[in-house]
């Protein structure tokens, strides 16, 4: 009975990948990241933002909230052993998976040591959001996004190199 408006699909195509990427980085669980990304879009349908709101900024804000909530309620821990995402039938050796996992865990660890706002800024930028969206999502001035990015980049690299 319900038809999804076309514009919704446009928004989906434009933002789904970014949102997924952003959540996957924050929560380090790619399966769950898909679930949460979908929830974000369901929220978009159910409780859309005001007309004049920046849709990218709004979406990424919702995604951050959901992802942080998920981390907080990490009683899901037990179900998060070694979760291997589907690789479309390509063969991936267990070693590869293990190596990749160590690498991913390291990134996650570094991110978790950073100042939250810097971390989120980094995550959003590398998920493909533009400065305007980042500034809305994080509530910082658009003119200071560049500076925040530089600071976050440096901090990340520093921590990353310290991490064994």
């Amino acid at each position, binding site marked *: *009975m*319900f038809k999804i408006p076309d514009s919704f699909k446009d928004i*989906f195509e434009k933002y*789904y990948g970014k949102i997924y990427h952003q959540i996957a980085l924050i929560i380090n669980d790619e399966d769950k990241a898909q679930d949460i990304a979908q929830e974000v879009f*369901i929220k978009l349908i159910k409780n859309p933002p005001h007309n004049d709101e920046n849709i990218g900024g709004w979406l990424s804000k919702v995604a951050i909230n959901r992802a942080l909530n998920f981390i907080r309620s990490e009683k899901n821990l037990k179900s998060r052993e070694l979760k291997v995402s589907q690789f479309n039938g390509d063969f991936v050796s267990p070693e590869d998976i293990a190596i990749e996992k160590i690498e991913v865990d390291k990134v996650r660890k570094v991110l978790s040591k950073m100042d939250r706002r810097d971390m989120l800024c*980094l995550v959003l930028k590398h998920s493909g959001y533009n400065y305007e969206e980042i500034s809305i999502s994080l509530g910082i001035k658009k003119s200071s996004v560049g500076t925040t990015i530089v600071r976050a980049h440096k901090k990340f690299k520093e921590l990353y190199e310290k991490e064994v």
Partner: protein
Amino acid sequence: MCFDEGTLQSYLDGEIDESLKEQIKKHLDTCEKCSVKLNELKNLNSFLDKALKTSSIDLNEAWQNLSKKINKEERGVFNMFRKYKKYIAAAAAAAVITASIALPPVQKAEAEILSLFRLNNFKAVTITPDDLQDIKNKFYQAGNKEIDLKQYGDIKVIGDYGSSKEISKNNLDKIKSYVGYNFKIPQDVDNFKLRDNIYVEKGQTVEFKLNVDKINNLIKTFGGNKLLPENLNEKTFKIILGNSVHISSTDKNESDSQKNISYGLDIMKTPEIIVPDGVDIEKVRDAVINMPFIPDDIRNQIASIKDWKTTIPFPVSDTDDIKDVTINGSKGIVISKKFQGSDILEVYSNLALNDHGVIYLFSGNNISPDELIKIAESMR
């Protein structure tokens, strides 16, 4: 003059004004220090890009999954009601029609306001695909292939959307004081347990102003002669949707299997419509019901609603089963639908109930109407 790193980063990301861009470009040609710095930033950038990679996803598959979920969520008729709440801006016409049909007087809330209507009852109004086609045809014949709703009125939603808050169900008193009214919740029956987190959301007010001349012209184009009263022009109607509570149950299967057996419950105070002073609401209703592009069978259904001043017309489709119910002395309506899923017959039931001015909207996944009634009866 050299540029700071933040500016160079913006330059790198293409997030800078054209004029400044030119300046920086020129400067980089001559300043080695800045060129080196830019290079460093570039390297950092690609290092981070690599480090923060995630595995790629199949967008098509994600879209399919999402569509499935949305269909499951949306087929609940009551979600249409929620939509009513949220989507009113988009569905301007529908809102104007349905809302103005359902208007009733109680008290003077503000100086300029005459009537306050509380919507207490539910009445299903069946809309078939033929009806929709009929409306479309009428518009087509009248040469109005596309209607720009904006010109028929202004709709404004006041209140914050994104601000739902989680409170534990063990903190019921806190939830009640947050939303500002008392309500009941279902008990854990038949393995359905309430989830620990209850969501509360701040209410919204929808204001709308109609452009009466434009609407009347439209009615005339279709050969209608019952027009909206002139003095309605530019007057503001308000629909008040109060703070709401969302509760959901765990899956009876305790799994995320396809056959999800659970229910959700939305609770809110009965919505109110405030009609501006001096508006003859009977006339408005008359004009709305007689709008020439409304198919006769819908018109008759709406016209036959007796307590129209306190009734919310619920749009349902002709494949829904509808039943009036009384639960612990309160009146409600159950709407259910069966449909063939990929391997199993799925049943979706919805139940709306008004208990002392509080509306409860249950939506059940794979729950029969009777089961849902039982859950509603357990409310305390």
